[in-house]
């Protein structure tokens, strides 16, 4: 690769261990903020997406508009969405979270609908035959059986959000993104590498933990092995 020439020119190694050991507190704070921003976004996203998903699943009239609106939100680039909000909500965590939540909605709503649609019709019939009322059927049959689809959505939403949080560094938040941004501003590789590596690691850990959680809460799916 070009690496030797480039590194030689700037005399800045990709990792300066002394910087890391001297900035453990900064790095930890960035990581914690990154996790907080992500958690808030995914939890609020779910709180909005579950009712939206149920409506979209039940009602043909609302399904189109719900998918179109969340799709438009999803398509608008993050920097533009933050720019739309800045003049009104300023450099606040609110600006960051409105944007981050907005991006989770399409993924979550779509997977909730796909999950609910995957519940076999005869299972639903059987539940009705056993005397389940609509609400009980939803809470005890439909939603539990839709969990694999829903968790799949939460996994993508979480990994996507972890990546997007880095962009919020540009509006003064950012978690690990602020390390990446610092690396860019000061032309200094170490924080950039640390921020990137930790962000990718966080995404992988979150994805695997959610996959584990999914196995835990759907014991019936385990015996069916790999599908």
């Amino acid at each position, binding site marked *: 690769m070009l690496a030797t020439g480039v590194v030689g020119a700037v005399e800045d190694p990709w990792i300066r261990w002394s910087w890391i050991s001297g900035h453990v507190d900064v790095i930890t704070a960035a990581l914690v903020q990154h996790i907080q921003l992500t958690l808030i976004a995914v939890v609020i996203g779910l709180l909005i997406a579950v009712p939206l998903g149920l409506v979209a699943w039940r009602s043909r009239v609302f399904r189109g508009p719900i998918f179109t609106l969340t799709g438009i939100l999803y398509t608008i680039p993050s920097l533009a969405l933050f720019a739309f909000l800045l003049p009104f909500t300023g450099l606040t965590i609110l600006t960051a979270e409105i944007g981050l939540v907005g991006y989770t909605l399409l993924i979550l709503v779509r997977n909730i609908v796909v999950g609910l649609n995957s519940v076999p019709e005869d299972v639903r019939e059987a539940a009705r035959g056993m005397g389940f009322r609509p609400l009980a059927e939803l809470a005890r049959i439909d939603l539990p059986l839709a969990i694999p689809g829903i968790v799949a959505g939460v996994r*993508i939403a979480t990994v996507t959000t972890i990546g997007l949080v880095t962009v919020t560094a540009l509006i003064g938040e950012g978690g690990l993104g602020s390390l990446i941004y610092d690396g860019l501003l000061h032309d200094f*590789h170490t924080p950039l590498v640390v921020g990137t590596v930790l962000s990718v690691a966080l995404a992988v850990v979150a994805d695997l933990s959610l996959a584990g959680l999914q196995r835990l809460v759907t014991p019936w799916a385990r015996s069916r092995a790999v599908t």
Partner: protein
Amino acid sequence: MSFFGQVVQWFLDPSHWQGDSGVPHRTFEHLVMSGASVLTAALIALPVGIAIGHFGKGGNLAINISNIGRAIPSFALLVLSAQVFGIAAASQVVGFGAVPAFVALVALAIPPMVTNSYIGMREVDPDVREAARGMGMRERAVLLRVELPIAMPFIMAGIRTSAVNVVATATLAAVVAWGGLGRFIVDGFGLQDYPMLFAGAVMVAVLSLIVEFSLAGVQRLATPAGLRPSKSTQKEEPLTALDTAAVAA
């Protein structure tokens, strides 16, 4: 004057429509950069995905590559690329920022196209493939006249996902000293010129939506007539790249 009045005024100012930092030139830059990146990525990714699907080996790689791609923040990719290629680019005629942005955008666009073209090829029913061979089709004809048409909606879905991603991330490239429409947002932010910031956001959003909807149209057209859902059996809109990859994973 109200804030929105100022935004409208920004658009009406003729000086914002001229020269290298005017709206037409920035839009042109944005489109050329995005188009070149998607095209380059397609030339690399589609043969790989199609080959993996056709020969049936390396499927896990094809699925996982887009999961890995999603875990790498595009912002980090841009900044890293700027650090690796930025210095080399400064001495070139192309202008600082163009090479790093291009490299990052190509890298970003590859994974969804590999995964989707693979999934598309896997969608082909083995019986259909057998039947084609039984009819005396050669391997080339099986690939070109049977497999690829059936896989086409998925291949197009991959291109669409990548293209929308690239147009969005090209906006961020303004942060690493490249042009494009993102400049209005980044400069508007730097100068505390909120009407300019907002106008930039409007243009970027409109461009992204145009790309998304027109490619969605192309994707529908690329679906062979026999595979289009008829009105009566209309199902959900097929899962996008993103969802298919994740559901399969």
